[in-house]
């Protein structure tokens, strides 16, 4: 027993371990959780996103990304790139400024924090005196102008952050020549906006919140122009030639002001409330972009009529007679417009608008008629609908890959064909070694197919299972189909839609056979769908069967949800994966395990009541087995009974409230704010949790018994061709493991291919193993005569794996939450075991066989078990001797959802959710490492570009 605890002392093995295993968190996929700030450098063509947890992420061309984290973990309020530099400044909500720079190191660029600084006023001054509200990095790259709440503007030197006190622009100095009646009415208040003159770097425009705008001459330290705005100011924007600027206001209006040398106190040229005449919400940001044809693009955020559309998160684009108010499903954090930044160009000629909403990034193509959205290559909103499960498939055959992409491209026709406009930096990472798919199942009944080969997690194809069922919500009921003459001209954009119409549609288990293109998905209401990839649209009837897992048990009453209603008659399916078989478990409890054997054409599924096997070739059930213990009331009645589900039911009831609120809002188009509701919801959940924490923390110590709850819960299903009955003949078999530590083995008789349709598949129970420690069985695996795990179905047929050794004796590996145990086959006798819980107090949460290749030699690789425990540790355990190789802390043990979401790949990588919208990718392998590797060059020194690239490539090659 101790020998497993002690690290091995074999120096050869130790060296080999160093060549095989290495732990790295490589890249974060998806959309940053709680973004709070956006920045863009037209010079570097890089975008920066800051978050409420103090992270800052930079994105350029696909594959170019950087991440930094502020030590303070405070909210990032503002991000400003230093003009023409690889540097940026961030402002946090603790009023600290941070200077970050991209520096090249070892052939690739890295993002590093260089300096930090907090503005300090004279002793005794109120904190508001130095509370920064506006930041202007001057084009000279030498100074930052910092507008504050007090109205003073401080000047600090870069990169030292030294305050240049003699250059401070005080509000007194500004107010000196303002007409008295105006200045009396309004004190300066805080600095709302600072804008440098586009042509004359010696002039800056200062906007104060009460409406006063002044043009300040930096050379002479005096005001050259006063613009006496009458409305509370929100933001300012210079027109390209510097002859005019636009101010936008709290009352939903914007004003155009002329700047001429003769008029020191100009009157507004134009004052407009675009969505008047009724009171409107503030316009918080505005762009005025010139074009060759003379008609400007006016792009502004907000300004909706307060009463009827005040809750919308909108950005309006006006170009001549065209006007669209893009309507986002979550709060708009910030946006920017990409336009010609060549100093010599005469016009702005905007090409795209980039909007950072709270839950997604939306890019609008302004060049193409109709202003279609651009499909982002990264920052995908994984959580458009909450992720309920994930499944990873490595090394997808090219043919299947192309078919999935082609099915996906048919879904994406409404996207713009514009190349991705944010294209700074160069990706120098080696091409991904293979094509990997990550499949995510969602609460709304969809399965999303992601290209997980490289750094950019990219949506390839979206599959919806909803069509098979009759649900309350009619899929054609689109709330956003507004008439032509509708005002304001709202258009819904983006994909984020967290509200599931029917939670029963949720996807719980996914299995894809990459060789045959068969896909099985299973859901919350006991539905199991088998699908096939079809390149054409098709209309057909889905074969429907029911699996009664209780088999006439008496005294039973299911109190959970009802099963889903199916559609009668043929259903039209778009090209892609099309269901042809539907099995519905009875009672309709959530499907807890799923296995598909594409060669035998069988699908096995399990719930908390039992498991079943279905022949999807002949479309008939083979058998069902009830695993329920008669005293297990909890499983009998369904998920919503007793105290155990108190937290869940609280959450669900709140979700119901939330849903009803949303629908009422939809109906009335009235009050309520989705993000507020979400926040309230999160707070409520938290409070409920806290209340639970307050209960005296004590734990009962009791041996598990057969009468415990959910012992019949089927945790794992496994198909194997092995020696189940005797050592001379092997046969197909199905293995099932339950929560109560029972393993069932069924011997299957699958008719040969030529009689496959004529003879039924037969099954017979051959073995039943009851583990004495009664811990839930989470994994079952058969090792062949060479102690290699049996290959996947069709793997050998496609020449991608050696055929299994059927000469030597097979072994059975049973992984429970507490122990790993190897048994001999066909006579099941225990051979060796590794106790995990008894020794370390941790339990197995996820386990997979992973292949590890050596980084030193190409011809060595081995199979090991990759294990994630409930403490968030990852352990690698050797096969077949079950020796602990190495252990890495990976996820915080409090992060239960992170641990639950973890999925391993076949080659020693993995993913887990760090927030509802982000996957962290990690690697346990020295060989398979997918991480960003990129260079951002100063555009002036492009001549050096290829040199860096070369060295980068060499590096990459060495690494791979």
């Amino acid at each position: 027993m101790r020998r497993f605890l002690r690290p091995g002392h074999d120096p050869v093995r130790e060296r080999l371990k160093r060549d095989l295993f290495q732990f790295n968190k490589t890249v974060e996929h998806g959309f940053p959780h709680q973004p709070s700030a956006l920045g863009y450098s037209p010079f570097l063509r890089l975008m920066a996103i800051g978050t409420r947890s103090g992270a800052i992420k930079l994105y350029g061309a696909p594959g170019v990304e950087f991440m930094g984290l502020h030590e303070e973990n405070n909210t990032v309020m503002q991000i400003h790139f230093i003009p023409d530099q690889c540097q940026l400044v961030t402002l946090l909500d603790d009023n600290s400024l941070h200077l970050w720079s991209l520096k090249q190191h070892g052939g690739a660029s890295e993002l590093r924090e260089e300096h930090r600084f907090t503005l300090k006023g004279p002793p005794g001054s109120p904190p508001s005196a130095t509370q920064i509200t506006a930041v202007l990095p001057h084009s000279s790259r030498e100074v930052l102008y910092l507008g504050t709440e007090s109205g003073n503007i401080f000047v600090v030197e870069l990169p030292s952050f030294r305050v240049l006190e003699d250059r401070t622009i005080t509000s007194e100095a500004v107010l000196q020549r303002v007409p008295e009646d105006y200045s009396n009415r309004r004190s300066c208040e805080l600095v709302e906006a600072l804008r440098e003159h586009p042509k004359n770097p010696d002039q800056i425009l200062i906007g104060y919140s009460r409406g006063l705008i002044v043009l300040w001459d930096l050379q002479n330290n005096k005001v050259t122009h006063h613009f006496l705005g009458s409305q509370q100011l929100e933001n300012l924007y210079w027109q390209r030639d510097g002859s005019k600027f636009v101010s936008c206001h709290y009352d939903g209006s914007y004003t155009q002001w002329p700047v001429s040398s003769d008029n020191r106190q100009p009157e507004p040229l134009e004052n407009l409330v675009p969505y008047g005449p009724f009171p409107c919400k503030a316009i918080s940001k505005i762009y005025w972009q010139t074009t060759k044809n003379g008609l400007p693009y006016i792009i502004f955020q907000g300004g909706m009529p307060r009463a009827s559309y005040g809750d919308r998160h909108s950005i309006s684009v006006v170009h001549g007679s065209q006007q669209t108010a893009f309507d986002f499903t979550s709060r708009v954090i910030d946006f920017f417009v990409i336009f010609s930044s060549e100093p010599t160009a005469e016009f702005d000629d905007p090409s795209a608008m980039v909007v950072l909403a709270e839950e997604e990034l939306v890019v609008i193509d302004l060049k193409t008629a109709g202003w279609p959205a651009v499909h982002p290559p990264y920052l995908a909103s994984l959580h458009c609908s909450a992720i309920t499960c994930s499944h990873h498939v490595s090394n997808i055959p090219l043919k299947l890959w192309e078919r999935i992409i082609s099915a996906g491209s048919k879904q994406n026709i409404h996207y713009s064909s514009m190349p991705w406009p944010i294209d700074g930096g160069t990706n120098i990472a080696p091409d991904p070694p293979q094509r990997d798919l990550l499949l995510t199942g969602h609460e709304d009944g969809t399965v999303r197919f992601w290209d997980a080969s490289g750094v950019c997690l990219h949506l390839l194809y979206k599959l919806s299972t909803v069509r098979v069922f009759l649900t309350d919500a009619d899929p054609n009921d689109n709330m956003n189909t507004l008439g032509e003459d509708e005002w304001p001209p709202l258009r819904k954009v983006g994909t984020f839609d967290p509200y599931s119409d029917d939670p029963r549609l949720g996807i719980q288990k996914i299995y894809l056979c990459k060789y045959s293109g068969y896909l099985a998905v299973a859901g919350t209401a006991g539905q199991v769908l088998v699908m096939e990839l079809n390149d054409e649209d098709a209309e057909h009837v889905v074969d429907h069967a029911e699996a009664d897992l209780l088999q006439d048990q008496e005294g039973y009453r299911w109190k959970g949800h009802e099963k889903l209603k199916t559609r009668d008659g043929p259903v039209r399916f778009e090209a892609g994966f099309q269901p042809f078989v539907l099995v519905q478990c009875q009672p309709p409890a959530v499907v807890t395990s799923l296995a598909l054997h594409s060669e035998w054409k069988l699908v096995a599924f399990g719930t908390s009541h039992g498991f079943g096997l279905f022949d999807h070739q002949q479309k008939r059930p083979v058998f069902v087995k009830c695993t329920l213990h008669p005293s297990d009331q909890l499983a009998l009645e369904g998920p919503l009974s007793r105290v155990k589900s108190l937290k869940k039911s609280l959450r669900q009831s709140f979700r119901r409230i939330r849903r009803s609120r949303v629908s009422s809002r939809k109906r009335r188009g009235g009050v309520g704010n989705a993000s507020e509701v979400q926040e309230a919801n999160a707070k409520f959940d938290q409070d409920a949790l806290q209340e639970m924490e307050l209960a005296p923390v004590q734990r009962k110590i009791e041996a598990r018994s057969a009468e415990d709850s959910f012992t019949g819960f089927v945790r794992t299903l496994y198909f194997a061709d092995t020696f189940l009955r005797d050592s001379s003949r092997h046969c197909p078999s199905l293995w099932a493991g339950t929560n109560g530590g029972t393993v069932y083995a069924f011997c299957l008789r699958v008719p040969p291919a030529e009689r496959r349709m004529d003879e039924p598949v037969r099954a017979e129970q051959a073995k039943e193993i009851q583990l004495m420690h009664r811990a839930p069985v989470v994994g079952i695996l058969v090792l062949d005569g060479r102690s290699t795990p049996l290959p996947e179905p069709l793997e050998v047929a496609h020449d991608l794996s050696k055929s299994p050794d059927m000469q030597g004796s097979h072994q059975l590996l049973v992984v429970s939450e507490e122990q790993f145990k190897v048994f001999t086959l066909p006579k099941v006798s225990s051979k060796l075991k590794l106790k995990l819980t008894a020794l370390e107090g941790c339990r197995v949460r996820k386990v997979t066989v992973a292949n590890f290749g050596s980084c030193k030699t190409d011809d060595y690789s081995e199979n090991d078990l990759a294990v994630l425990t409930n403490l968030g540790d990852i352990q690698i355990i050797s096969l077949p001797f079950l020796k602990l190789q190495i252990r890495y802390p990976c996820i915080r043990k409090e992060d239960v959802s992170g641990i639950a979401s973890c999925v391993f790949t076949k080659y020693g990588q993995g993913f887990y959710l760090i927030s509802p919208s982000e996957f962290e990718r990690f690697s346990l392998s020295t060989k398979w490492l997918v991480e960003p590797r990129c260079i951002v060059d100063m555009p002036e020194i492009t001549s050096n570009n290829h040199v860096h690239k070369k060295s980068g490539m060499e590096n990459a090659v060495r690494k791979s």
Partner: protein
Amino acid sequence: EFRRFSLERSKPGKFEEFYGLLQHVHKIPNVDVLVGYTDIHGDLLPINNDDNYHKAVSTANPLLRIFIQRKEDADYSAFGTDTMTRKKNVLSNVLRPDNHKKKPHIVISMPQDFRPVSSIIDVDILPETHRRVRLYKYGTDKPLGFYIRDGSSVRVTPHGLEKVPGIFISRLVPGGLAQSTGLLAVNDEVLEVNGIEVSGKSLDQVTDMMIANSRNLIITVRPANQRNNVVRNSRTSGSSGQSTESSLPSSTPNILANFLQGEEESDEEDIIIEDSGEPQQIPKATPTSESLESLTQTELLHESTQNGFLPSSEMNLNHSAGSMSMEYEVQDPDHKSLEEDGTIITL
């Protein structure tokens, strides 16, 4: 019913053979029985091992009267001194055991049925302020019956007294194993679970460890009540409890590990039901451990009784069920009896 048969007085053989002979003579091959005899004083005395069997044979003059009772409805109180004279007839007691219902005797079973339920172990290597308690769970209905909680304790460290988090027993279930043994009490601090220190581990981790080891749980505690400690050394050694707190003898884990190794082989034997429907313990593929060989003869004896323990009726049940695997249902009582069987440990 009565049987009469002869035995060779000079070569009585072993008790087992004799027991087999009795079962054969009475044609009750799978029924567990208690065997007793009357000695010269008329006392009914048990025969259950080689020693008392030999004694019985030697005292026979020339007839040896032997009484056999089914184990299930055995009346243990019948044995003992003066039993034959006190009552008119033992047989009447045996046949009408309801006589005793009015005054229920405390049943103290036969010596062979004695099994350890709890023990204090390693007293020779542990500091006297600590107590290492072993609880044996025999798949009986009696719960282990205790709860643990987080808390903090004071330790002596090189830097002086320090408050550190600890795990404590928070509650004993009335009637549970933990309470019945009297070896554990509320507020005892848990220091180790089966040889693994719990310091630095969370309450949930320790809970999982205890449950995983629940079939053979060894917990080292520092009793809250230190007054009952046995003072083993002379007082001059002056070892105060706390000073040894952080320095358990370094050899302890190894010793424990060694003796656990032996444990390993017998503590958890999974049940396998082949398609023939016959449940059985999973045998060891390779009896690796030498410790098995060092087991005493008594253990072997026990094993033989274990094998004979399977009641025939249940065997039959399994046979009949096994022929139709599809409808095969595992009978729970089977399991229970098997569990009990699997965990008999003798050291």
